[in-house]
Every structure is written in C-alpha cells, then in structure tokens.
C-alpha cells in the first residue's frame, strides 16, 4: 500500500510499504477513504516530538471501511463505515471507564519510555505520533490497523459525506473539549481563542454552541480571521494591534472570562519573551515557545479558565504564574478524550448545527502529501486544512517536503 512516511526533520515521503495485518484478535483493518494533515503533525515535521523513527507511518485523522476483523471484535463487521479517534484506548481500565480515554493505562506498549520523560504513569497510545505514544502506525495510508477496534471504531450509519464526519477523529472534539473545559455560563461569558487554525476554529464555534455571549479569536493570518468572522466571531490580528490592550477594550476592561490556547509549543508572537523563547529553542535549551500561553494568562479575567488544547512537549520557564495565582485562574489541559465526544458531536452534525467541512481549504491525493505538509506549515496559498484521498491520482507527483 501507499503511505506517508516520516523520514527525519523536515522530510516526509510517500512510499509503498507492506499492507497492515491483524496483530491481535481485537484488531481490525480499515481501508482508509479520507485522511487529514493535523497541525500537530507539523510538530513531527519540525522535529519537536522526540522518539520518531525513520520510516514511521504518519497520520491520526482518518476514516474508512472495515475490511478485516480479528476474532474477538464484536461490534464491527466487514463493510462498516467508521471514524477512528486519534487516540487508542482499551475501554477496560479505570481511566477509560471514567471517560478519560486519552489517559488509557493499557494501550501504550512503550509505557516505560513515557514514564521516564513524564513521571509516574504514561498516557495511552496515539496513531502515527512517535514511539513515546506507543509507536503505532498512522492513517495517512491506504490501510491501517486499528487496535481495540470495538472501542475505537465508531460506525457512521447515515450517508453524511466523509468531509463532514472526518474531523470527529480529532480537531472537532479537541476544539469542543477545549470549550467545554471552560464551563461557559450561557449568555454571560466572553471567550477568547488564541490561534485560528483548525482547532481554534472548532473551539470558537464550540464556545458559540455552548452559549458564550461573545467569542473573540486572535491570529495573524487574514484568511483564518476571515473564516472565523463568517461565523460571527470577533477577530484580533496580533500583528496589527497589541493583543492585551485589544482584548481589554473588547471586554470592558475585565478580560475574557475564559481563554483557550489553541496554539501550543510553536507559538510565534513578539516582545522580549517571544525572542527569548526562540533563542533558547534554537540553542536546545527549551522545547516550547509559550507566547500564546503567556498572553492567555495575562489577558484572562479573574476567576477565569485557561484551557489548553494546544500541544506542549517539555519544560517551560518565564511562565507568569504570579498573574495566574493573583487572578485565581483554573488551568485545564491535555489530550482529547475523543471517544467521549464522537456520538454527541455526530448528533450536532446530523442536526445541522455545524458542518465541520468549513475548515477545508485543500483537497489532494495522498501522493501530494509532502508538498502539502509544506504548504500547510508555511500557511501558503491560504491553507487552513488539508484532506487527502489515499486512492486519488497525484496532481503534483511525489515530492519531498
């Protein structure tokens, strides 16, 4: 089959690799009909996530049709159309039973590696996202092995097109969880979202769905801000105005009641903090650039929530913790418990509350992935979200990013 492979920092290729096979009786094999490039794949491209190996199959947003099931799979059968959460959960451990699927105790075979880096216990496995998270082969491929298929295979029984349900695998639930974590008071709370990429877009629209009185989004790319504005979201371009002053003015001096940092470790920005982050990162003294998080804490209203769907990797310094303490902020963060949200959000899509395909700007064949990784990373050509067809004809030939 054809698959997108990580070959090293800034190097992705599309090559022919062996088809996946069932490795355990609880596995299924899915023929991928659509897959996407996620913003967090760019952390892999940029080499910020440790423990990637040359030849790893990338991708964690994908859906398709079940073509083979192991003998222990009970709820899925060949021919079922399924979406697959990006995180792998066993469904049996105490965390899964409590709905904390991304904290699954049992799905990561490389738990020791994660424990060494992150302390007592590891998170669950992820598709196509480094050996720290289990080393599972990803879904930017024609076929994929789905472990714990009964837990991680969600049947789509209506004829909604792929583009409307594909993002249930990650960015829609991720944005939604970020908004839900704010405990928004309907008709009263103002929510600011840093980062108008795909997750930021879904976080902002989810905040609207959860009843926020006003939603403000912060970014620097006009096309992303325009997309948000179409949904009635206020916008701030941080390159055109001072974001802290603008947010203060937009909220009558209070600051947003809740702030969502949908940027994570590769934040851009300006000011001495941003310069120092960049310098330290270049010198390998730090993993994470935290301009967005810093702005989130400084802008948030007293008693508010800083919700962090953006990915952070390592240690952080120059964090304005004094401000967070003085204002009594609550921090909520972590990988999405995707399994929890798929059915309720599917119901929203079916009811016509939201059409998630609004974020898509680029559609291409899998073979075009290397070029599109680059286009997406550099935000060229108005690129916000890329969907790949593993069975389509290459438009641009196989190139390397």
């Amino acid at each position, binding site marked *: *089959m054809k*698959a997108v*492979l990580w*070959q090293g920092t800034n190097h992705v*290729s599309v*090559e022919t*690799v*062996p*088809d*996946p*096979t069932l*490795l*355990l*009786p*609880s596995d299924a094999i899915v023929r991928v009909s659509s897959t996407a490039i996620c913003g967090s794949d760019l952390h892999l491209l940029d080499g910020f996530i440790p423990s990637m*190996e*040359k*030849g*790893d*199959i990338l991708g964690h947003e994908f859906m398709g049709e079940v073509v083979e099931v192991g003998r222990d799979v009970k709820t899925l059968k060949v021919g079922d159309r399924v979406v697959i959460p990006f995180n*792998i959960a*066993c469904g*049996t*451990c*105490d965390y899964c*039973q409590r709905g904390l699927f991304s904290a699954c*105790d*049992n*799905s*990561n*075979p490389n*738990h*020791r590696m994660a*424990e060494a880096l992150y302390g007592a216990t590891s998170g669950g*496995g992820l598709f196509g996202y480094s050996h720290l998270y*289990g*080393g*599972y*082969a990803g879904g930017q491929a024609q076929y994929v*092995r789905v*472990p*714990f298929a009964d837990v991680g295979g969600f049947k789509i029984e209506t004829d909604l097109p792929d583009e409307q349900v594909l993002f249930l695998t990650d960015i829609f639930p991720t944005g939604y969880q970020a908004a839900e974590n704010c405990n928004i008071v309907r008709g009263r709370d103002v929510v600011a979202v840093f980062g108008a990429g795909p997750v930021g877009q879904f976080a902002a629209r989810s905040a609207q769905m959860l009843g926020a009185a006003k939603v403000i989004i912060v970014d620097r790319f006009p096309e992303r801000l325009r997309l948000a504005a179409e949904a009635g979201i206020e916008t701030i371009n941080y390159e055109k105005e001072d974001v802290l002053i603008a947010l203060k003015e937009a909220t009558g001096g209070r600051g947003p009641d809740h702030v969502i940092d949908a940027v994570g470790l590769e934040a851009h920005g300006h000011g001495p903090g941003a310069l120092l982050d960049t310098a330290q990162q270049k010198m390998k003294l730090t993993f994470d650039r935290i301009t967005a998080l810093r702005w989130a804490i400084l802008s948030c209203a007293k008693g508010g929530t800083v919700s962090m769907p953006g990915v952070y990797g390592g240690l952080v310094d120059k964090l304005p913790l004094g401000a967070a303490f003085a204002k009594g902020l609550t921090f909520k963060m972590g990988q999405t418990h995707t399994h929890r949200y798929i059915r309720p959000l599917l119901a929203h899509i079916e009811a016509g509350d939201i059409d998630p395909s609004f974020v898509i700007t680029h559609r291409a064949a899998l073979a075009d992935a290397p070029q599109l990784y680059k286009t997406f990373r550099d935000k060229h050509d108005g690129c916000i979200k890329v969907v790949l067809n593993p069975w389509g004809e290459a438009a641009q030939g196989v190139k390397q990013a």
Partner: protein
Amino acid sequence: MTNIQKSGFQEAARKAFFQGGNGGQMQDTERVAVGALGLGLLILGLGGGAGRRLLVGGLGLGLTAVAVRGSNPLATAIKVEQNNAGQTLISEAVTVNKNAAELYDVWRDLDKLPNLMSHLQSVVVLSEKRSRWTVKAPLGSVSWEAEITADEPGKRLAWASLPGSSIDNSGEILFRPAPGGRGSEVVVRLKYRAPLGTAGVVAARIAGQEPAQQLRDDLMRFKREQELGFAPTTQGQSSGRAGGAK
C-alpha cells in the same frame, strides 16, 4: 483508624522493611577496588602531556574521592536505594482493576510466575514453602532456592533466599483494596545484594537490565494480562523501514 494514621503506618512498615535505606552506599570491597583504580589512574596521570594529565589524573582523583566518601554519586543521582548492609532496595506498585483475592491467587501459583515476569526463566515448587528460582542474567542464568516466610491469603506473600544462595535476596508482595472501587493496589518490595555492588546496579540500570526496571515492566504486564487478557503490541506492523514489516 483514620486514613492518615493508616498511611503513617504503611510508611513505617515500608521504612522497617528497608531498614533506613539511603542512596548509593558502597560495599567495602567495592570501596577498595574503586580506590585502587583511582590511585592507579592518578599515578598514570603524572606522565604524558597536559591533556592526558588533566583527563586521567582528574578521573583518578574523582574515583579516589568517591572511594574515600564511600558513596557512589552516580548511584545517588539515579536514585538507587540501598541500606547500610549494602543491599539494593526496590519497590514498585501498580493498581489493577480486579479484587485482591483474585490477584493473590494468580500470584500464589508460583510455578506460573514466569508467564507474568519476563526475566524469570522458571520457578519449581519443591514443597509447600520451598521453591527453586531461575532468572535470566546477562551471562547465562542464575538459580537459587527460596522459602516463603509469610503467607496471608488475599493480602501478602513474603519470601527469602536460603543461606548460601548465589543471589542473596528477599521480598514481599502486598495486595490491598484501592479506594473508590478501583480494584487493588499491588505493591512489591525487593531487597537483594547485587553482584559487583553499587557499580553493578548503576551499570545494569544504564543498560536497562536492572530489577527495578524489570519489575515495573513485569507489573504493567501483569496488570494488562489481568485487565485485558493480552499485552498491546506494535510488533509486526508495517512501516517504511528496511525489510518493511517491523
């Protein structure tokens, strides 16, 4: 009894088991060996160019200092816990979503333990209390006889190697209900005299071959076997590495 008193009790029990453990205490023979090596390097360092004098002499000086202090700074840094008798102490715990009596029964079936613990080659039950243990070691395998010293069904098992064993060791495993219906907490405490002393422990840990690391892996394997009936794996999946499937 309140929870605070109870956990104080547990802490005291842990301390009693470890008998005042501290970091990286070297054994006498080890001190002599390291000291001799240090002095040797110091003498070697007297000859040669400035670079060699600095490097070899410095290393010699460092090792001599380590021998004089009697504690291994590397062992302390990577948190090897040892008691005054020079035994290495290990404890590890895991919560398993099953009741304690069930888990105790699985463990009490000693000759099945090699299925749970990957580095165990075999356990042969000789009598009600005695058994013969064989573990894989970097150079072949090591074997000893052990005796069960305490057996509280559903709660605790303790054992010790018989005098004259190739590896002097003892340990206990506790099974206790986890709060809030989360199954059981399984706690393992081991005490052993490492071949080559602290240096051996440090070397083994760096090589990822040390009992503390093996114990963690084994307990996670035990948990997954009990909760899922299998271990998750990526062995054999497709990738773009040479030879394809890996």
